[in-house]
């Protein structure tokens, strides 16, 4: 399907499409920077590519075959059409110091994504409305993800950034006066919500300009939890990156493990054993349930309904203690999957432990919906608060429950099934208004659907067989072989010390994360370490819309919205 799209593009643009490529099922086209706006506008207008998922920067200065390429940087725009279900990577290449036209006017999700590329690679985007650093501190020198930026070089920076300037406050005050024909001049007040605030559930910062309690202007700042995941990944072997993925969305770590593995396996063209596939589905759905439980209960706490927290948290703890911890030895930092399969097999009583907790989950869902679903205060606080239309949501790059709350039934598990999701029978719940209530209710219903998938998987019985592919390229040999044969020892030694040799190339592996599409764009140079790993965290584009979503609302609404869009600072800042 996507191949046809590339053909049509060739027919439309002819020579202006410089290169086309197809690797591991990902279609890509290369265009000259000057042609990018035309091609993107055509793709959005004619080919229904409504969603710009991510913008990836790659520094090719150390990539074999490109060392002397004057076009040092590659910027990859990851486009997706939901209605026609095709996807395309549009690449532009730029030498050092050359601008690339910005797509921020076409896709609002490009705003932050391009800022990130600028921040980490120094590629400037022409026409970008607000090209500032985003993940690194505003006084940071150099660009951290360039290959010539030494990984050891730390910079000690602490000066806070003022997001709303004095003259802007003055101007906003005048606007407010004019709009209401005020007798007395307005006095507006800036307040920092975060980085350390009870409602931010992590280190986020929003500086808001308040008129009374009404938010006139909101600016967000992220990066407080930036710990250079992507730079670190380039310094470790493919397998060593796994524990770092736990720390991205630490609420549903196993989902990160699974999707990261899927991306690397895509590069390796590896097939994983059926048992591992089914277990991955089960743990993914368990993680999704946990993710939604935490999001909804924290959201309800923000709304003042504290008791629901325990009703849901008890279930989460049950799942952790009864299932996740026996499975991999820890609760949050699971490090469960391996490239080519799983790290550990399921324990005895796995099925009954899950079933027991799913029953608890259903009870808890019943209790919580009983408390809030028809509660007048809850409805007053959430209905119409932070409402998004489907168009707006797509424009901002929403995926997952926040997109489905607007009424678009887009789910990666249905649109691009992986791990055998096509064989399971489940529904994609959608909302109608895209407001806070719908986001909460979609999440609650998704937990029911996840439970349904898990029951189907368990009902069929786990397939027998190994949990790890028997492939010496990437899978560690069993201990008998390591201790019993010289090939085993060598294989083990090579894999541990040098890492799995992943064939050169690039692949975008993605799956449905707890909060939307989670993707890993991986580039390999054929060595044992990733050349580039780019995470596509679902909450990054969602949080970019936060400032716009809360404008004109009140502080309590902002808190309710922030809870409902489920920002996990770990994956937001990486």
């Amino acid at each position, binding site marked *: 399907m996507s191949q046809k799209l590339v053909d049509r593009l060739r027919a439309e643009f002819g020579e202006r499409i410089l290169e086309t490529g197809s690797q591991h099922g990902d279609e890509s086209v290369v265009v000259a920077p000057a042609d990018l706006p035309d091609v993107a506008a055509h793709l959005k207008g004619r080919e229904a590519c409504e969603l710009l998922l991510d913008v990836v920067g790659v520094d090719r200065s150390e990539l074999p075959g490109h060392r002397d390429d004057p076009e040092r940087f590659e910027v990859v725009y990851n486009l997706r059409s939901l209605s026609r279900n095709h996807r395309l990577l549009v690449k532009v290449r730029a030498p050092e110091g050359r601008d690339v036209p910005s797509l921020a006017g076409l896709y609002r999700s490009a705003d932050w994504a391009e800022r990130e590329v600028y921040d980490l690679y120094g590629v400037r985007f022409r026409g970008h409305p607000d090209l500032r650093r985003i993940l690194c501190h505003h006084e940071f020198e150099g660009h951290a993800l360039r290959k010539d930026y030494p990984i050891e070089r730390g910079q000690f920076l602490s000066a806070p950034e003022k997001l709303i300037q004095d003259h802007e406050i003055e101007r906003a005050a005048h606007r407010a006066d004019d709009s209401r024909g005020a007798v007395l001049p307005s006095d507006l007040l800036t*307040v920092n919500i975060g980085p350390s605030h009870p409602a931010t559930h992590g280190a986020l910062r929003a500086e808001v300009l308040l008129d009374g309690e009404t938010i006139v202007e909101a600016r967000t700042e992220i990066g407080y939890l930036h710990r250079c995941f992507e730079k670190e990944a380039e310094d470790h072997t493919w397998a060593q990156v796994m524990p770092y993925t736990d720390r991205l969305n630490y609420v549903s770590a196993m989902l990160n493990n699974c999707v990261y593995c899927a991306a690397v396996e895509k590069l390796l063209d590896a097939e994983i054993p059926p048992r591992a596939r089914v277990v991955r589905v089960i743990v993914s759905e368990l993680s999704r349930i946990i993710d939604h439980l935490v999001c909804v209960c924290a959201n309800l706490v923000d709304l003042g309904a*504290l008791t629901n*927290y*325990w009703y849901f948290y008890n279930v989460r703890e049950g799942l952790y203690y009864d299932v996740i911890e026996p499975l991999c030895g820890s609760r949050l930092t699971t490090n469960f999957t391996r490239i080519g399969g799983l790290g550990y097999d399921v324990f005895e009583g796995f099925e009954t432990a899950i079933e027991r907790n799913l029953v608890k989950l259903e009870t808890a869902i019943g209790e919580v919906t009983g408390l809030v679903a028809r509660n007048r*205060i809850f409805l007053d*606080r959430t209905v119409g608060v932070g409402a998004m239309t489907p168009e707006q949501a797509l424009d901002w790059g929403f995926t997952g429950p926040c997109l489905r709350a607007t009424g678009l039934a887009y789910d990666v598990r249905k649109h691009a099934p992986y791990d055998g999701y096509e064989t399971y029978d489940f529904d994609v719940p959608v909302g109608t208004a895209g407001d806070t209530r719908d986001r909460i209710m979609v999440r609650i219903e998704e937990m029911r659907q996840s439970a349904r998938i898990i029951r189907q998987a368990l009902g069929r019985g786990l397939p027998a067989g190994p949990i790890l592919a028997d492939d010496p390229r990437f899978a560690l040999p069993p201990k008998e072989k390591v201790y019993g044969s010289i090939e085993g020892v060598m294989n083990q030694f090579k894999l541990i010390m040098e890492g799995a040799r992943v064939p050169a190339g690039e692949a975008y592996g993605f799956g449905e994360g707890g909060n939307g599409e989670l993707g890993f764009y991986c580039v390999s140079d054929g060595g044992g370490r990733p050349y580039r790993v780019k995470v596509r965290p679902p909450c990054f584009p969602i949080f970019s819309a936060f400032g716009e979503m809360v404008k004109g609302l009140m*502080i*309590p*609404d902002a*808190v309710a919205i922030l809870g409902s869009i489920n920002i996990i600072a770990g994956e937001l800042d990486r």
Partner: protein
Amino acid sequence: MQVMTDLFARIFGDGLSSLGLLVAGGLTMALIMALVMASCAIVFTWAERKVAGFIQSRYGPMRVGRWHGVLQPVADMVKILGKEDIVPRDADKPLFMLAPFVIFVGSLMAWAAIPFAPGFIAADLDLGLFYIFAVSSAATIGILMAGWASNNKWSLYGAARGAAQAVSYEIPLALACIPVVMITGSLNMNDIVIAQQGGIWRWHFLHDPFLFVAFLLYFVASIAEVNRGPFDLPETESELVAGYHTEYTGMRFAFFFLAEYANLFLVSCVATAVFLGGWQPLFGPVFLPGLVFVIKAVLLVLLQMWLRWTLPRLRVDQLMHVCWKVMVPLALVCVLGAGIWMLATGQAG
């Protein structure tokens, strides 16, 4: 206070002048009230945690004091006494230090007019009910003081919310009591309780449908008046960090805390006296009046706790909407309706 004055008169005979008796009796009663207030606050912090635990399928405090953590509040008190007393550098120091006491004193003064049992009332004022509303309004000043003096925007927001809420909800609170005053023809708390003699059917909240509604209005407004969930907007932890007492630590914070629980009990006591028959038992003759009174008030407190742990919180504009557009008109209707009812049933004098 009569009880105490009599007691002193008996002990000292003619050795004390009448005013000396008055002062001595008053001081003793004030001391007793302060102790009652402090201890009820202490008991209620424990009760709140157990109630919350019970509702939230957990235990609450279990360790200190062997049985269900009964000594937990004592341990907390000791801990809080040992806390550093922090005054922010840029705070308005005199006001910052004064604010907790203003709130505490405002609450303490109101206790004087609560009739716990026949004769056991610190100040048997003719204007008892009016007096309670009057002095508890001083707490608003304390909230404003704390919010301003902290020099913290969140505190200021909490204070502004708290003051607006207190000033607004005082109106339905007082209006809801007016039908009772009309029926008894007195603002004296003792008289109001005595008028409800003769079993539960004589209690004011069952007097007529309007009074029943008035009781509900009073109950809701009283929750808002003491800033508790679902009306805990001045100190919403998820929005305003901790509202007007964000910057307070140690004993100063404890004063806010004590005042909150004391007020919680206070409004329940007023509801008991005004609507639920005070020390009058369900039926039969007066029996252990003090205990009956306290049981009724504690049940109301538990009800308030139950609500707090069940309902989400309102938004600030919704809070005002409920007060001005729903409760005040409804309370006015109750006043009018109760008047008409009295005329119709021939109770009007």
